[in-house]
């Protein structure tokens, strides 16, 4: 069956135990997208799906995605909107802010 995801592409998945997004490097799963193995042809993408299925069966990952990528300013990003945010992480600052920077706003 013809692969629907165009190359170049990378393989991502969630770590089953901790939930974080990781990328297949060809040998291990890494949280660093710059380590991601890039598939340049359809058969490589199909092989990635096989790899994903294997790791799902080993209860290491869950919910994989083959992400079509582009290089922009030497950074890997996705050609699809949703996956571009999956790769970048939240685009907002979250967590404990610096209290000093918060104004007591009033009219």
């Amino acid at each position, binding site marked *: 069956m013809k692969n629907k995801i165009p190359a170049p592409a990378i393989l991502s998945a969630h770590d*089953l135990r901790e939930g*974080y997004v990781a990328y297949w490097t060809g040998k291990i799963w890494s949280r660093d997208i710059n380590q991601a193995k890039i598939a340049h042809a359809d058969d490589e993408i199909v092989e990635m799906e096989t790899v994903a299925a294997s790791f799902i069966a080993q*209860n290491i990952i869950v919910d994989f995605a083959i992400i079509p990528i582009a290089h922009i300013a030497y950074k890997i990003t996705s050609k699809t909107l949703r996956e571009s*945010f999956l790769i970048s992480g*939240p685009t907002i600052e979250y*967590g*404990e802010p610096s*209290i000093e920077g918060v104004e*007591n706003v009033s009219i």
Partner: protein
Amino acid sequence: MYRYDEFDAAFVASRNAQFANQVARRLDGSLSEDEFRPIRLRNGVYLQLHAYMLRIAIPYGTLSAKQMRVLAQIGAKFDKGYGHFTTRQNIQFNWIKLIDVPQILAELAEVSMHCIQTSGNCIRNVTADHFAGIAKDEIADPRPIAELIRQWSTEHPEFLYLPRKFKIAVTGASADRAVIRAHDIGIQIIDDVKRGIGFRIYAGGGLGRTPVIGKIIKEFVTHEKLLGYLEAVLRVYNSEGRRDNKYKARIKILVNETGLEEFIKQVEAEYAISDTSSVDVDADEIARINAYFALPKLLGRSETKYDAALNDSAFADFAKYNTILHKIDGYVATTISLKPIGGIPGDATSTQMLAIADLADKYSSGEIRITHHQNIVFPHVPKDDLPDLWAALGALGLATANIGLISDIIACPGLDYCALATARSIPIAQEISKRFADLEKQAEIGNISINISGCINACAHHHIGNIGILGLEKSGRENYQITIGGDATLDMALGERLGPGIDAEDVPDTIERIINRYLHLREEGEEFIDTYRRLGIEHFRVAFANQGQILSEDL
């Protein structure tokens, strides 16, 4: 507030042990993801875009200070130091690890909290008016009814595999602050001249991809018969609701496809043959639950310090916008805005949550409410303590005086977090908030609601915002549709679309043009929704269509 008895504690402990076992079996592969998914959802565990998310139930939005402390600690220990309060009065943590969930549930159980039925195709958290028990316009406190329904619906053996999620809201005041007509079942407490206190039942409301306003299916049900009647509704839904298409599976679709009259007939027929003896509630049980929600002892207090503090304009504005008068003289309910200018709507850090808990103990009899607007309420603040409370909140970045104003934006997590989202919502909220940061301008605009959803599921209720913003994807880019004229009250209305979707960077300008148009057209005393209703959408389409051109009111 309601306190767990031995039965409740044992039930939650048993459920936690069961889920801990299920997590272990998932991790060792005994359960596949397909088998585990519905289980984890019914225990509040989602797999989102970046991580697991845990949704914790806050029954009808009521929390104790002790519970808030534990939520703060969970945020610090197991997440990234913050939590997000939702439009269903729950809290979500965005960075949870599955392996930590059993421990988190154990810590929640210590303070009578859990995540049961916060997701999945079951009856979800029952929501209610955040001013329950204290508002001057209240007919009766909705929380005892919400608690009754919570107990009845938790692990109800018939209703754990519904066609789809099911949401119930209860309001007890003349003004509906619980958005009941946008719920699968909405319950309005009424005081009938002949029959006394009872309940008017709405059904078939819902937002999402097919927004529908709920309709009355029963004018009056007594307290004693309420659960039996709800069971009849749920049985008809469970039996007749569609299971072939998840986008057509909500009760709103069933009511629409069946026809309201026929649906009511089916419910009445089901009720007539039901043996409701096990769920009918006698006067003793009503009194027992009511007793949990009695007001704390609120002694008369002077208002001298409060009156003197009003000379400080900043305090005066906080008092004006963030407080309402309590039933008891000398007290106010105080809303703590989680919408600082440019901030993330509904988020609070663990530091803030700990401080809020301490302040609740000091100033609000230890009680906290979460609103569906994603803010926090201290229900019982002595007016003379308000200046000190305000100062303390200011030091925490929690004293923004904007409740009900344009920067009090409701926004879902959107594509920054949510696996279902099609666009981001938080940055849009932040930019609009910054555009209208000037609070004199906010006061001039007056009461207005802006609701921003990052997808068609409408978790931020954009359909019923005075201004609604829906984020979609178009040709690989974020694209935002603007609606106006939505109303979340009992006069519920769905917003009308202004025109084609626009790019993210155009949203703040567009909102500003709409607001300028309103200010230009309004008559004295009119709020945004009033002007829209008087004039209709075409007057606002002018502002929307003329982007890039200057209209007279922009000058």
